[in-house]
Structures are given as structure tokens and as C-alpha cells.
């Protein structure tokens, strides 16, 4: 029971092997290996089980991290998987795509130079391995309430809501316009970060829990929202954000300028052999590619382009490296794979006639922090230059694009275009229409997968309470 108290000092942090850049850029498979059981156990055993689990505090879903670390150390895999699912509906996915170095692992007490616990990799190991060994969520004691809830959008918020509802004895039916579940998990995130087999397995598990998926169904086009609204006991909207933020740059419509999402989806479609006229495959091999934006989406574009065989990939960001919003790990991966970063450069104009030929940028310096504490870049006069390019990807982020059927059902939105939830006397994530709930990016604006998971789960708890089950 009692372990060696100084294990964390004597055994240093060790992440699973990463494929070397020269090899991994030749394919689209995941670059990290997995722990084996012994490694997972010994790394988990480094946890000192703090009186205040800062990791759990910082985690948006508040995973019981020290507790499942201990279970893994003791080799109790299925219990760890069970516990992991108590706070997170998609732990194997979060283990892959969360920026742990900004969240749990950043907060880890041992991140004071000793070396934080490799929480993400262990999280991923737990569910991957448990599923491999036959673990499935225990639904034995669920009493079915005969209530049904429609979920619009099979992204992380929707899936998480479905998970909680199914466990609560409510039958969830998930609608999605795409041919696969996952939303951006499937289509937005490159396969080298998240193998789509993982999402498929999750679908399999959820169907086993009684979740019904109705795919290739665009609500509002293929099926009217009103019919859904009337048929179900409650509705959850988790349709995400797909409206690209316009950089306001001159000549954004030149040929060779691409939206990040369209580009990424096209690439995934190509791998999954899906044809989708809205998101065609964009081949940037041999191209001189410039990616605008320093978030995780930007990094995904960088690395996709590298793998497509781009001649050169440059990433332009208006602040310095320390102030980048994306995961540091992804920046490192990009650099290793050959991406050239240009910091403190503000894009002003896309240059070219019909085809793009470059991006005009200006040098910046960081000014005073704004009300959120982030330092705003200020332009330095006379510092403009043109970076040549024959393909430009714009990755400035996304805004929600609320369909009309939402407002038609007296669901209010906020000024920034997001759906408003929890107005006075309403439950968390309940909209102004009591029967309709919403969560994820459509409520917050584009954010992390894990926050969408959290909101989907919390919304589902409200639905259970609304339905009195």
C-alpha cells in the first residue's frame, strides 16, 4: 500500500517514445507510442498525491487524476477506466488532444523542476488499454426512464451529453450532418494527432450504451428542427463553431488562400476516403506555405502541410513565442518537423494578383496588457515586408454561426453570436427555451475539446434534472 515516498525524485518523468521527425512526416499516423503497463504504473507512481490536487483543480472537467494514477500504479486498470469516465466522457481523446502542458501538467506540484507527472499519456493509456482488454461502461444498474432527448451535433459536447444521459436512463438520439461522429474530433483534428479509429471505437462503445446516431442528417435541411423539438422530451444543441474569423486582410479571396478548417477537413476526408464537395482535398505538396495564426489549429495546418510534402512551411504570429495560445508541445512538434516560425509579425495584406504570391507583414512589439492580462501587439512603423508564399492558410479561429431554427424557437443569443445559457431562474446550460439546452463552442465560442466535454456533461445533468430522472 505504502509506496516509496521519494519515487518521484528517483524516477524521472519519461514520456512514451515519439517517432523521429524524419520518419513521422512521411505519414499521417499518430507520432506518440503508448506506455506499456509497467511504464504507466511506474510513471503514475511518481504522483505524491497532494493534499490539494492542483492538477484536478486546473483540469476543466476536474478529473480525479491522483486517484486514477494510484489505481494504475496498483494495476487496477478497469477501476481506473471506470473512475476516469466519471468525470470525462472522452478520456482517451482528451489524453491525446488536451494541451496538458497548459492545464493539469502545468499545475502539477512537481512541475517545479522535478518533472510533472505525464498525466495525458497515462490518461490515454488507461482507456485505450482497458477497452482493448474488454472493458465497457457498466450499465447494469441503469433504470430506463423512457425519456428521449435529441442531441444536435456529434462533436465532443454532444457526445458527452449523450454519455451522461444514457447513464442517467434517458435515451439520447444524436443528429449530425457529417457521415461520421466526432465533429471536429474526426474532421478538424489531423489523424497524426488523433487516429480516427479511436473515434470509431468510441462510437462503438456509445452505441453499446444505447446511444443512437442519425448521421448525414443536416438539421434544418434534411430534417426540420420543429419535428425534432416536438418528438423529443428535450433537445441539446452542440453544433460548434464553423464560421471562420475573418482576419480583415486585403485580398483574402485570392486563389491559394485557404480556410484552415476547410483545409484540415479536406485532408481528413482524403484519408478516410470520404468525398465531401464542401471540403475538397487541398494538396499543398511542393508549395511554399504560410500559415497565419499561432493557435492549435495553426499548428495542425503546419504539420498537415509538411506531411503533404510542402516545400516550405512558415507560421506567422503577431506576438512572441511565450505568448502563443497553442500548446507548447505542438509548437515543438512543428519545429521539429521543419516549420519555420516568424514571431512578432502582424499580417496586413495578402499579396498577389489572381494567385497568392506572398503576405505583407509588419513587425510588432508587445504593449500594455489588456483587461484579460494579455499584452496587445503594437505595430512598429516602417517595418513592413513581404513574405513570399504560394499558399496561405488562415487560422485565426472560429465563431458560431447560429442557424435560424435556433432563434425561431425563442432561444436567445448573446451579442457575440453565441447561444445564451442559464438566464435567471434557469438551470446551467438551459437556454431561454426551457426545453432546449446548449453547450460547447456554440455557447463559449471556439475553445478546447475538454471544455466542450465539460459543458456537454453539465448540460446533460441539467437535462436529467429538468426531466426529473
Amino acid at each position, binding site marked *: 500500500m505504502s509506496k516509496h515516498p521519494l519515487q518521484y525524485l528517483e524516477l524521472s518523468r519519461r514520456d512514451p517514445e515519439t517517432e523521429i521527425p524524419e520518419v513521422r512526416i512521411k505519414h499521417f499516423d499518430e507520432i506518440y507510442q503508448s506506455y506499456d503497463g509497467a511504464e504507466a504504473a511506474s510513471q503514475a507512481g511518481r504522483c*505524491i498525491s497532494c493534499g490539494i490536487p492542483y492538477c484536478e483543480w486546473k483540469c476543466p472537467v476536474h478529473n480525479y487524476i491522483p486517484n486514477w494514477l494510484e489505481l494504475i500504479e496498483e494495476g487496477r486498470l478497469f477501476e481506473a477506466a471506470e473512475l476516469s469516465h466519471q468525470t470525462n466522457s472522452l478520456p482517451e481523446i482528451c489524453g491525446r488532444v488536451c494541451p496538458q502542458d497548459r492545464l493539469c501538467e502545468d499545475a502539477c506540484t512537481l512541475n517545479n523542476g522535478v518533472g510533472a507527472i505525464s498525466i495525458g499519456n497515462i490518461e490515454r493509456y488507461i482507456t485505450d488499454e482497458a477497452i482493448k482488454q474488454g472493458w465497457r461502461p457498466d450499465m447494469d*444498474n441503469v433504470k430506463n426512464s423512457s425519456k428521449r432527448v435529441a442531441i444536435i451535433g456529434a462533436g465532443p459536447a454532444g457526445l458527452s451529453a449523450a454519455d451522461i444521459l444514457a447513464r442517467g436512463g434517458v435515451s439520447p438520439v444524436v443528429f449530425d450532418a457529417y457521415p461520421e461522429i466526432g465533429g471536429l474530433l474526426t474532421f478538424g483534428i489531423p489523424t497524426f494527432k488523433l487516429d480516427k479509429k479511436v473515434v470509431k471505437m468510441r462510437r462503438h462503445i456509445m452505441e453499446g450504451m444505447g446511444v443512437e446516431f442519425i448521421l448525414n442528417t443536416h438539421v434544418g435541411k434534411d430534417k426540420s428542427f420543429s419535428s425534432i423539438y416536438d418528438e423529443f422530451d428535450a433537445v441539446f444543441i452542440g453544433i460548434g463553431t464553423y464560421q471562420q474569423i475573418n482576419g480583415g486582410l486585403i485580398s483574402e479571396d485570392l486563389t491559394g488562400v485557404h480556410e484552415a478548417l476547410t483545409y484540415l477537413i479536406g485532408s481528413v476526408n482524403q484519408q478516410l476516403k470520404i468525398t465531401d464537395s464542401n471540403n475538397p482535398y487541398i494538396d499543398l505538396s511542393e508549395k511554399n506555405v504560410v500559415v497565419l495564426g499561432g493557435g492549435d489549429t495553426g499548428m495542425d495546418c503546419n504539420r498537415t502541410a509538411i506531411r503533404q510534402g510542402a516545400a516550405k512551411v512558415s507560421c506567422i504570429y503577431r506576438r512572441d513565442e511565450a505568448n502563443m495560445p497553442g500548446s507548447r508541445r505542438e509548437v515543438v512538434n512543428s519545429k521539429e518537423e521543419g516549420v519555420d516560425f516568424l514571431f512578432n509579425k502582424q499580417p496586413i495584406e495578402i499579396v498577389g494578383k489572381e494567385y497568392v504570391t506572398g503576405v505583407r507583414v509588419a513587425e510588432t512589439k508587445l504593449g500594455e496588457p489588456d483587461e484579460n492580462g494579455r499584452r496587445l501587439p503594437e505595430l512598429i512603423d516602417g517595418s513592413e515586408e513581404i513574405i513570399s508564399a504560394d499558399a496561405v492558410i488562415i487560422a485565426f479561429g472560429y465563431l458560431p454561426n447560429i442557424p435560424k431554427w435556433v432563434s425561431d424557437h425563442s432561444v436567445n443569443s448573446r451579442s457575440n453570436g453565441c447561444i445564451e445559457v442559464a438566464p435567471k431562474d434557469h438551470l446551467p446550460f438551459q437556454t431561454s427555451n426551457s426545453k432546449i439546452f446548449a453547450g460547447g463552442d456554440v455557447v463559449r465560442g471556439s475553445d478546447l475539446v475538454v471544455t466542450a466535454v465539460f459543458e456537454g456533461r453539465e448540460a446533460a445533468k441539467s437535462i436529467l434534472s429538468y426531466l426529473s430522472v
Partner: protein
Amino acid sequence: MTKKDAKGLYDPLFEHDSCGFGLIANIDDKSSHWVVKTAINSLKRLTHRGAISADGKSGDGCGVLIKFPSEFLRAVAIDSNIKLDAKFAAGTVFLNPKKRMANKVKKIIESTIKQEGLGLAGWREVPIDASVCGQSAKDTLPHIEQVYVNCSEGMSNETFNRKLFLVRRRAETQFEGLDEFSYIASLSSDSISYKGMVMPDGLPRFYLDLLDDRLEASACLFHQRFSTNTLPEWRLAQPFRFLAHNGEINTIQGNRNWAIARAQHFYSDDLGDISDLKPIVSMTGSDSSSLDNMLEIMQASGMSIIQAMRILIPPAWQADEMMDSEIKAFYEFYSCHMEPWDGPAGIVLMNGRYAACCLDRNGLRPARYVLTKDRHITIASEIGVYDYPEEDVIKKGKLGPGEMLAVDLLKGELLSNDQIHDHIKVGAPYQKWLRDGFRYLDSKLIDRTIAAEPMEKETLITYQKMFNVSREEIKEVISVLASTEQEAVGSMGDDTPMPVLSKKLRSPFDYFRQQFAQVTNPPIDSLRERVVMTLQTNIGRTSGLFELTAKHAEQIIINSPILSQQKLRQLLRSEMFGDSHAFIDLNFPETTDYLSALKRICDEAEVAAKAGNLFIMLSDRYLKPGMIPAHALLATGAVHHHLVGLGLRCSTNIIVETGVARDPHHFACLIGYGATAVYPYLIYQSLHDLARRGNVDRTQQLGRSFRRGIRKGLFKIMSKMGISCLSSYRGAQLFEIVGLHSEIVEFCFSGTVSRIQGTKFSDLMDDQKELARLSRSNEQSLSQGGLLKYVYDGEYHCYNPEVISTLQAAVKTGNYQTYIEYADLVNHRQVSTLRDLMKPVPLGDSIKLEDVEPVQDILIRFDSAGMSLGALSPEAHEALAIAMNRIGARSNSGEGGEDPSRYKNERRSKIKQIASGRFGVTAEYLVNAEVIQIKIAQGAKPGEGGQLPGHKVDNVIAKLRYAKPGVGLISPPPHHDIYSIEDLGQLIFDLKQVNPDALVSVKLVAEPGVGTIAAGVVKAYADLITISGYDGGTGASPLSSVKYAGSPWELGLSEVHQVLIKNDLRHKVRLQTDGGLKTGLDVIKAAMLGAESYGFGTGPMVALGCKYLRICHLNNCATGVATQNNLLRSEYFIGLPEMVINFFTFIAEDVRYWLAKLGAKNLEDIIGRTDLIELLPGETKRQKNLDLRPIIASDHLIEGAPRFCTALRNDPFDKGELAENMLSQTLSSIQNKTGGDFSFKISNFNRSIGARLSGEIARIHGNDGMIDTPININLNGTAGQSLGAFNVSGMNLILTGDANDYVGKGMGGGRIIIKPSEKAEFIPKDTVIIGNTCLYGATGGHLFASGHAGERFAVRNSGAIAVVEGVGDHCCEYMTNGVVVVLGPTGINFGAGMTGGFAYVLDLERKFVDLYNHELIDIHRITPENMEAHLHHLRSLIVEHIEYTDSKWAQEILQDYRSYLAKFWVVKPKAAELGSLITSLREAA
């Protein structure tokens, strides 16, 4: 009610007293005035054991109980024209000074005399001189008369006295409530009492009778009181009618409650019907007076006083394997019918036939006796209470633990302990009765099926949710108990809200705070002194004490009250109970209300008991839809009280089958409120589930291990209150309730202290309904918990991630704005402490910040809390000291000594702590302190000791603590020199002798009654008092101690402040509080509640980088704050003194901000101004039902009385004249380092002799500076307590005579020699020459005593070398270094907790194998072949002993060394190498 009407927190029930006592008797019953005169003179020589009130004249009371002086009384009666018959009685009666009331009471007494058929002879006004009294005694002075009663002809003395008893009781019941003056001090034909609120030297001047030569008696008890209160109460002076008592009756609450429950069993043919005299045993007054009542009724019913006393205060017979089986049977038989009244107690008692003295099983009070040639025996707290020529002494000795010594005045015999046993064991065929009647339940060795019918998984989860089991609890509490057989250890404090403040679902058990002993009585070490403790539980029917039949032995005996499935089944199937039990379902419909449900349960219990069922099973085992379980604790308390009230409780037993009992505290609560035994079925089911999931070693018997863990926990909880036997704990209600409404307390827990209201039945109902809802919901998992560790959405923690990270950011950057953010987080948190419901109200208009006193003046009021080097890393410890010194505040060394290189610079801790382990406490350590703090208790684990595990004892720590690296160090639960309040006074006196410049501070933990304790502490001459809250931190403590003991400081501080003002003591002492103080606002509130100084523990630690990881006990603190690991300290410790300076400066600035806002110029304007506190209504229903008015009440306020300390220091009454005289004679030889020889006469009232000189030497030259030029002090006579305390090198004390307790306490060097006078005719090797607890905490030096030492010789010795000729019990306990040679018998439990050093014991009677504690030590013979070194070492010590003491016995041994050598044992820690003992000793020297 307005604030002014509210009653404060003081309750007379909280008062304690303790004292000096004694008895003188002529064995042949020869009367003389000499006996009376000597008794009174002896009393004077015990003055230092009593206390003096603020007027300087009133004592706490003293008195004598004189064997009936019939000649004298007859003579003075004649003077008063009273006609007496041949046989008569007299009584001392206190009456109202107002004639009318006095006459009324006299009439009552007269009529009861008549009622009993006795003749009133008359009244005599007792001549007194009131001018002797101090003002406060004068104010309450009664009119005192003697009443004379004639005995009818032919009536036996027994009958006469029985009737006099009835007269007194009947009269008392009539004038009770009528008049508070009236009191019958004695009424008997056997004895008469003279007592009052005067100092001992005033007693004979007050009662003129006492000076009258005609007053002759053959025996006399005397008593001097030290009370924690000063409101004079004449009636509370002792002796009572039969006894005088030194110490406390720890078990008093249980004893009183059971006395009520048993009331109908006090019937006896002799006494007749006495049902009108209830309560027989007083529920108020002092514990001793209740004991006196009990003794009286037993006697009146025809039992001999000696037998009665032995039944009430038995020795620790259970574990005594050497005890005669017949006497064991006697004790065992009576244990079925009377629980022990356990001390610490030294009792002297007397009736017409016997005069006797006895000690309780722990022997924590001293009792020394002298028998002289003229057949007078004197027994007293001290030896040498009168001057007898040494050559007249036949015998001197002491009473051991659990022993009794008696004089049979009728037969003229002195009865030893064994002789007394021989007398009482033959009263009945106890052994045969027990053999026939007792049934033992045995568990089979293999008990693998812990739950015979395991629940289905989902059923189990439903149950776990219904009873609010969390995953955290399963992991941290239940499975730890079941796998390690003990509680989990944790660190840091409890920073969660009390349940009444919480917004989460909390267990009703959480409202109960365990009481613990501090100062007035000691806790027991349940690990090292297990021999005195027992959990034995008898199930059967309790019967009358006075009927002796075999039927009374029909009992089932179990060794623990925690039942296994097996035992429960055996019980249910047993012949005795098979058809004699009733099942009562605790589940009730959700639609009824809680109170009616409990009433239904009580009614069912009543019916069952009346039907003759021998046990009642209260059960929540069978949950049903639509029903919820009444909480087992509420049900148990309610049923117990209901049955007690009906006189049915002793006819039946309460077995509780419940899912709510999970940790030791839960079991303690159930038993404390009356449960006979508990069957925790849900635990067994949960453990079965754990085993099913394969989480544990399947071969382990989890249920059995769990029960063992709980048993240890129960021992610990009982020992905190100093209670040895579970039967004395059962029903004793030793808890404080914080936050339950009186509607619950009165119905279920009546009599328990509960002061602030709160949660009502309806709230508990809501909680249980919510649990029921959750248990039935689809949500499958248990809640994570969060009570111990922070978890999102769990219980609120005051030290949460936001608070910690913001504070650390603030102190690191020095940014005050960030501090403000932090302060806002704290000040605007959800209500988590009582002070969060208080808001300061301005004095007037706000003032400008610059008009407020400067930061510097506020900073000096800040102390850092005692945190030892050992708990903290040296870097953190020094950073803290440097910071505090730089800002002019004080840091606290904590327990564990201090490196002398820190004494004279900014790394010095100005406060030096002295705790129960006395680690590193030397004269030099003490003289380098500004404040010496005696840590009585700490908030995280009051009433408990501690242990520094071996892996934390590195070279540095070992050196400072005079120990060996890698060897674990134990801090005992009690200070072994503080078993009562006058002992604390003695320690304070010792410290003030060694360092007259230092202030002495006493650290207490808040609990009900802490106010009266503090009053006692002030009267013991402390200069400062710290009141800690329950939320204090710790480096390591069992979890249930962190969670369940101690009260919020708001209650404790306020109670202390109120009581001190009430007693006119507040101005004499500085009050400090600590416990979770975080911001300036906290300081403001603490000031308003009465504190003038403020302690911070966790705050500055967090400032130094602590992240509240709660892993201090593992020595792996990742922040390098609380670890000794080199790598962690050097690489990861980020703390700097500046961070601490920032922390305190911020808080001081914050205080200034608040003062300005409140319109106060300085803190003094608001200290003690509870009128400036506005109570807030609270956020939740239960918070709104709180009544915090007692905390801010002002009923104690006296117009113009000081609200804070105005005295510079609190100097003792005893000026230590001999010590000052010694200093003036030796000073130049100290200053010039010349040494020399000096001689003085010494008496028992010359205390701490040597300490004054040692302190002076240490101050000038350090511990070892005089080693080459010693000062030799020759003393002649009897030394008072603490001879040679904190002795240093070069200080040699040579005493001819004998000495009292604590010789060589804290000795660090030099030599103490004690030898009998050459004229003495007694045999020194069989005679006690020094008292108890000698060499406690010694770190070096030599002691040679030609005679026996008392109990606990060389306790916690870490370096002294001693030779004595016999020792009492518990010798060498917790010893870590040094050598002890015992040339004679030892008591039991030798070497318990001994981790270092060694001993040689001469075992002539071959008994030692059974006497030593086998846990940590082993013993070896010295054989010349392989133990040459020991042979020579021992011989050289014996030679030295002869050289210094001329011991005849040692000479005899030496003459025949080879043959005696074969009878010696070498005693050493198991871990130590036999061969290296002497070498390592040399290295240490």
C-alpha cells in the same frame, strides 16, 4: 434578547481543582493535640500546592477533617450550655449570615433530626476570626455553627451514623435552592471538619478551636486546594465528609450518569427507601464531592469504607498477571456493577474505624509516607511536611499505582496493600460465582467470511450512498484501517467548515468534538501504557451493589465492543439472550418527522426493557422504499437517556447494528452516548467488496484487522481524556457539540456541552432525504468526498488552490495589490468559520490611515506558531526566524531544541518551546529565550503525543535532540511533570528560576472549560496564554484527531477572556490566539474577541512555498519546506525571509486599514470589545439557526475592568528565598569561574533548588563552562520538588536527607547525590529517597541516590547516567540515551517506548522478565566471557555510587560482585547492538 442578556461561555461545571493533601494518624488510636497541630503545620508546608486569589489573602480553600474529638466537643458544648448524652455526634454547618434564613435552615435540620428519631442537643456558634479572610472570602463568608445530636440509647454506632446521613441528605434536599450559603460540612460521630477559604497559615487563626490545646485527636486529614476558579465557594473546600482528594476524577461524567442510571440499585435493607433523596451523587460541585457522595452511600449501605474505596478506584487488575486470582475475582465481580472512578487521584479517607490513602491505577499523584517510632504515620503529597528526627523514622515509603495503605484504628494495625486485599477478597466466593456465571465469546481464529451474506453490488452502493460513504472515506479511512490495523496518518490541519456551516451533506458525527485532558489532568499514553487500559465489555444485567449472590455474576464478557458477525450470532444464539432480545428498526417513513420517529424508537425500547429483554438491538440494516434511517447516534442517545430516566438502563443492553459507524470517532460517539456494543455491518460489506475486487491481499482478514484498528482508535480517544476503562467511558458523553440545536441536544444528548445552537431535526431530515434520493438515483458512483483533501465540487477548503496561489504570488512579488486580491478571496469566501458570521462595527467615524499606530507596533504582536526543526527543514526554520527577528516579532523554535550557533544572532527563535518530549531542553536553551512556551496541547491533535519517525532523524536533528540518527523519537501525550494544575505551577516556577527574565507562556487548545483552565494557569503564574483553534496544523497526526478534536478558537478565546475578566485575572496575562488566521480582518476580529497577540503557522509556511500538500509526515515535501531530504531542500526550496516579511507586513498594513476604517487609533482600542461585533444572519437555514451571542456576551464585564494585560509579568508568590540566598553567596564564584563548597539547610517548601544557579551559570558560561571549577552545594533536610532542575556541568548538589518529585528534571550536566542521614536507622535500600518523574527529559549529568526512586524514573532521559537502588513503574519510558543502573526492584512496564541508551537491573527475585515492556527492548545477562566491557562499566558505576553515597547495599554487591553479576540484566533497545552500547556512550560524551 439583546446582546447584554446573553449568557457567556463560562459554566461552573467546567471548574477543576487539584491540591496538596495528607493524613496523620496514630496507629494505636491515641489522641493528642499534637496530631492536629502537626496536620495544620503540614498543611502550611504545602502552601505552594495551592493557589491565591487576586486579593492576595483568599486561598482556594483548605481544611482538616479530624477524628471525632469527643472530649473537646463535650467541653465546648458544656460552655455553650448544651447537654450531651453519653454518645453524641456533631456537625459543622455553614449558614446564611442573615439570621432569618439561618434560622429557617436550622429549623429544617432540627426537624429532620427529629424525623429520624434522634435528639437535638443544641447549637454552638463556632468561634472564628474573620479578619484572617481576604476580601473575596469575606464577601461570601457564611455564619458557622456546630450542631450537636444525641444518640439514642442502645443504638449502634453504624445505625447512628446511617441516620445522621439520612438527616443530612433530607435536610439538604429541603434547603437546596433555598439558600446558597447553607451547607453541612460534616455531621457524624466519627469525625468533624474545619475548612474554609483561607490560606493554610490562616486556618488555625480563623477557627480558634484549632488552637485549643484540648482539641485532641488520633487522626486527621488535611487538604489544600488549587482551583481553576477564584469565585470563592466555601463549600468546595476539602476534606469532604470522608475524603480529601488530590487530582481529578477523569471519568466523573460517566460516573455521575451511571449513578443516576443505577439509582434504584442503591437500595439496601439497612438504609431503607431513599428514593426521595435523589440524586444521591451530586451532579454539580466538584468531582471529589461526587466521589465522596458515592463513598458515603456505599458505606451507609453497610459496606466497609476500605472495600468501597477499592471498588470505586480499583488497580489495573485486568492486565496484572501476577495478581492473586482471588483478589482478581473480587475486582472482576464488582466491575460488572460499578465502573471505575479513575483519577489521576490520590485520596485520603477516614471514618471512625479506618484512616487510609489510595492512588488510582496510573499512580499519577504522589503519596509519600513516614512511620515514626511513636507509631504515628504521616502520608502526604510530599515527604518532609513536618520535621521529625531522622533517627525516629522506622520506615519511609510511597504508595504505588493502584495501591492502598490503611490504618485500622480499632485494632491498632497498619495494613499494607496486600493485607487489605486479604481482608476484602474473602467477602464472598467470587471466583466460583464468576466461573459459574461468566461466559466468554471467542472469535474463531479464521474469520475469512467477514460478511456471511454479501450484498449484491448494487445493493451495497445503495447502502453506501444512503449512509453517505464517499470514495475518499473508503480509501483513506476504511481500507487503511482494514489493511494496516491502524488509522491513516495525515498532516496539516482541518481547513473545512464545521458541519453547521457547511453546504455539503455532512455526517451528524461531525458535530461532535472529542474532549481531551489538558493541564488539570493528563492524557494517558495508550500505546506505551496499554497495561492500564481495557475495552472489556460485559453484557448482562447490572444489579445492586449490596446484594451478594451468584446470579450477579451472570454476564457475557467480550474483549471489545466492536462485534464481528460471528460474535453477534453467538450473542443472539446464547442461552442467556436467545429469547431475550428485541429488534428495533431505525427506519421510518419519509413522511413522518424525525422527532416522532425517535420517540417511537424510545417507546419501543421502553416496552422491550420492561418486558425484561436483556438486549435491545437498534438497527438500520433493512432499508425500505419510502423509508429513511434515523441516525444511529441520535437513536442511541435518545434511547439511552430515555431508559436512564426510567431507571431501566441497567436492566438491559443496547446493541447498535448500523451503517453509520466507520471510523474510531463514530464508535466512540455511539459508546459515549450509551451503546453497549456496535455491529458495523456496512463496513464488513464494504470490505467484502474491496476483497471481491481484488484490491487487497486475500489472506488478510479484513474485518478483524479493521476491528483492531478501531480498538486502537478507541484506546486513543479514551486516553485523551485520561480514561482507562471503556466501562467508565460508556455513557460519559465526553464531547462538545458544536452546531446542533437544543431541540436535538435536549432529546438525544442531554447534558452535553453545546453552546451555539444550529442544525435542527428538520435539517437532518432534509439531509437524509437527499441521501435517500441520491441512493435511489441512477447516478451509479459514490461521491468522491473532499473532506480530507480538496476536490472540485467537494467541501470548501479555506486553503484552496486560489488562496494559496494568490498568496504566494503576493509575497513573492511584494505586490500589495495581489495581497488585497488574496485577502478578498479569504474575506469573501463562503461562510466557513464562526468569525465569518461576525462583522466589525466602527467605533466612530473613520480616521486617516496616518493617524493609526505604525506597522511596527502591530508587527510586535505577531508570533509564528511552534513548528519544530524536524517538521520544517532547517532552511525554512531559519528563514522564518530571520524574518520574524527582522520585523521585531517572535518566532517559535517548536519542540526539538535549537542549534547553539543560532542563540546570539538573527537566526534565533525568541520563543523556545518546551513540550512533552523535552527534546534539547537545557539550561542554556532556556536562558536564551525571551519567552518560554509550554506546549500543553496542539490544535491538530490535542491530548495526543507524537512521534518523529526514524527516517526524519538525521545527524543535525539527532544532535539537537540528544538522540541517535535514524532512531524514532516519541513525544508522550502528557508532560510527565504536569498531571494537574499545581504541577504546571511547579514547572512554571522551575522555568522562572532558571531564567527569571523570560516570560512563560502556556499553549492551550480551545475546548469547553478552557476558560477555567486558563484561570488556573494564570494562578500558576504564567505570563502569556495561547489559545489554539481546532484548525491548527501538524507535521503528522492520525486523521480522526485532525478532524474531531478541539473547538474553534472563537469559542475558546472568548471563553478565556470572559472567565479571566470575571475572576479579575485578565490584566495579569497576555492572551494570544492562533488557528487559521489569514488576513488583517481575522486579526481585527480576534482582537475584538479578546486577543492581544496573534499566532500564525500555516500562513508563513505557505509564504515560504508550502503548497499544502499534506505529505509532511512522509519527509518527501516537494517544496522543500517540510522535509529533511537534502536534494529537495537544496534544489526545490524557494523560500526567503523576505517572503515572510512581506506576508506579515501585508497583514499589519491590512490591520491598519481596518483600524482606520473602524475609527480606531490602535489595536488596544478594540481588544476585548465584543460590543463592536455585529452578528450576521448567515446564508443557510442552519447557519441562520446559530446563536453566537454567548461568544460576544458581556455578562462577565465589570465596570472599568481591564480588557487586556497591564502587568509586566506575573511573578510567583513563592519568592524562592533560599535560591536567592544561595545565588548571592555563590555569585562571585560563578562570575569568576572559581567554584567552591557551600552548605545550606533545606525543607520541602524550598523548590527547584539549583535551577536558579544553573540558569545563571548557563547565562554566563553556557552549559559546560564551569565543568572544571565546580560549585559543590551541600544540602541537609528534605528537598522540595524539582531539586537540581536543568542542572548544568559544574553544579554538584549533595543532599543528605531525601527529596520529592522531579529531581534532576531536564538535567544537562553536573552531579546530584542524595543519601540518607548517617543517623537514619531504616534500611536505605528498601526506602524511597526521591519522588516521581526524576530525570525527566535529562540530557546529561549524573545522579546517585541511595534508596528507591518513585514512578517514571528517567522518563525521556536522553543522556543522564544514574544509579538508584529501586524504582517504581514505567522506569526508562521513552528513554533515548544515557544509562540507568537499578540495584533493586523495579515496577511494571520498564522501558516502554525506550529507543536508546541502556540500563542495568539487579533482579534478585527473578521477576524482571514479567516486568519489562517487550515491545522495543530486550534483556541480556552479563557474562564475563563476552561482556567484559559491561562488567567493568557496571562495576565502575557501582564504585562511584559508593564513593558518593556510602551505600551499604552497593558495598555488599561489590564485595560479592561475581555472584551478584549473574543476577543483573542489561536492558537495551532491540535495535541497538549489545557490543556497541558503551562505545556509543563514549562517543556521545
